């Protein structure tokens, strides 16, 4: 069973009301439990929890240190192409946006990859828009032939695909899948995705299940915060993660918390997610799913990112550009403005200053993948 029927059942309940009416007792009970149930997760996401953020923080910090130590895993994204046939209203790569479109050749990719590797980064996330004719599974497979010898771990954040294609890319060297549902609200989803293959809500929703079955080592989910009510969206994200954790016990499940940022195009987020809300979401997730990996990207400002290090985050990006070939070329093809443009070295220094160890390499497959080039 995939998450789809579960999501449909959850969406049929009055989630806003259920979360909104949680009282202080529910919050206190949740804070004192070892093993939280969905109702407890709701309580921690509710307005009643807003006056208990410090207590949540202390508990979330404790749990995170227990399960992850004082470490933060670093990764960096590499945009391979920004051609896109979708018309997502909130995205800089929207097919209707008049921005320069680009796609890396294998030679350009090699140069870009080496530039990244020289900074010490070993966990790579490769991204494309959705344009299978130009940058489809074949293109990705070719790219992996270039990247797998250089990076011990390569994740993909691209268009959703069939299980067989995920399996093909895994054989080519991919070990992680990142795919954001954007919004778990089907009606809103339809409005936000007026044209293009991304219109298919169910196909996208079931992609993490397919990735797990195909053999992904890590699967990373999330909703784009700001599109819909963040309490409901975060609840469904957490339940999605909980389903995958239960159904595929061998897979490392992670959640990202991307908050909408300025970008090309006129779309403005319908909901504003304040700093304290983002912190509340992260801590609630940490307490609900103690072994869940939580990722915060460079959409967030440096000071904010530094302050949340002890609160439950376990993965952060560094040395980021969202432009195609942005490490070696210019920034005109960027998907969104980043806020934290610190390099890998600067991030390391910041983490160490907070008493945390930056981890560059957390994984290397020894079962048949090509060996990486010389390490940093």
């Amino acid at each position, binding site marked *: 069973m995939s998450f789809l029927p579960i999501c449909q059942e959850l969406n049929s309940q009055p989630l806003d009301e259920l979360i909104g009416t949680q009282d*202080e*007792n*529910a919050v*206190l*009970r949740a*804070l*004192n*439990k*070892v*093993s939280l149930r969905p109702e407890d997760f709701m309580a921690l996401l509710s307005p009643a929890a*807003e*006056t*208990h*953020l*410090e*207590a949540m*923080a*202390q508990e979330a*910090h404790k749990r995170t240190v227990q399960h992850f130590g004082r470490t933060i895993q670093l990764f960096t994204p590499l945009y391979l192409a920004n051609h896109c046939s979708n018309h997502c209203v909130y995205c800089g790569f929207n097919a209707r946006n008049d921005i320069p479109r680009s796609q890396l050749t294998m030679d350009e990719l090699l140069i870009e990859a080496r530039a990244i590797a020289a900074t010490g980064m070993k966990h790579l996330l490769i991204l494309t828009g959705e344009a299978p004719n130009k940058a489809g599974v074949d293109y990705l497979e070719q790219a992996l032939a270039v990247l797998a010898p250089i990076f011990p771990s390569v994740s993909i954040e691209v268009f959703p695909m069939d299980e067989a294609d995920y399996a093909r890319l895994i054989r080519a060297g991919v070990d992680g899948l990142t795919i954001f549902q954007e919004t778990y609200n089907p009606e809103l989803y339809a409005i936000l995705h007026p044209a293009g293959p991304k219109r298919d809500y169910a196909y996208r929703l079931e992609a993490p299940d397919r990735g797990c079955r195909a053999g992904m080592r890590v699967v990373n989910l999330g909703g784009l915060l700001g599109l819909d009510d963040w309490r409901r969206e975060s609840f469904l994200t957490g339940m999605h993660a909980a389903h995958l954790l*239960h159904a595929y016990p061998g897979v490392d499940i992670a959640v990202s918390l991307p908050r909408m940022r300025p970008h090309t195009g006129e779309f403005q987020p319908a909901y504003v997610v304040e*700093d*304290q809300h983002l*912190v509340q979401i992260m801590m609630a997730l940490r307490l609900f799913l103690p072994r869940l990996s939580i990722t915060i990207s460079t959409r967030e400002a440096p*000071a*904010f990112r530094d*302050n949340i290090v*002890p*609160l439950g985050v376990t993965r952060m990006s560094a040395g980021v550009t969202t432009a195609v070939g942005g490490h070696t070329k210019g920034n005109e093809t960027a998907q969104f403005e980043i806020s934290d443009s610190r390099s890998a070295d600067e991030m390391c220094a910041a983490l160490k200053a907070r008493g945390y160890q930056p981890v560059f390499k957390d994984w290397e497959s020894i079962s048949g993948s090509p060996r990486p080039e010389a390490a940093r």
Partner: protein
Amino acid sequence: MNDLFDIGGKHLQSRLFIGTGKFADDALIPEVCEASGSQVITTALRRVDLDATTDNIMQHIPKRMTLLPNTSGARNATEAVRIARLARAMGCGDWIKIEVISDSKYLLPDGYETAKATEILAKEGFVVLPYMNPDLYVARSLVDAGAAAVMPLGAPIGTNRGLRTEEMLRILIEEIELPIIVDAGIGRPSEACQAMEMGAAAVLVNTAIATAIDPLAMGRAFGNAVRAGREAYLAGPGATRTLASASSPLTEFLSGAQA
């Protein structure tokens, strides 16, 4: 309160299973059944002693009890299957507790052989309750094999040491969809209560009752403890306010938010 334990086609009111072993006097058994409120009772299967006429245990077990014969003596799946089929031939129902133990020092169960026996017997229509170490992977294979419940030990048989495996039991209760019946090692009513409070579906207690100085009173105490633990579990935990800790605040940086 309608909180029946549905298992193997029965709707049980009592979540305390008891045993028939180690009693100083088997004549106490029907009174212990009464005092404890238990509705499920275990027995073993052995060769008849042809030289002596001993009382048969069945005459001490009230007809209303559901019999749960065990496969004690089995050292592998084949032996357990044989004993189970023989037990069913007695005509007292098709519940079976699989006990495959080839370790005579600690009496710890062999999970692999237990899973093999479970699969065979479940296919033959038995209501299989396998006794096991609280191992998550073994539990999953028992689910797949068709068990009606899993029976993880709290501590080795006869040790009366309580829930030494508490953390592992918690994980099983969390992750396994079948009823979790904590069997072995429960020495005191408080420990049975604790198991129920954690979310166990039932507990099985033999040694602690049979070898008590007053088995009737102990049976009664266990009955009360299991009911208390179950009610507490259903009532849900209270809301405790944690005292403010002295460590440095983590959320002061959120301007406008409560620290």
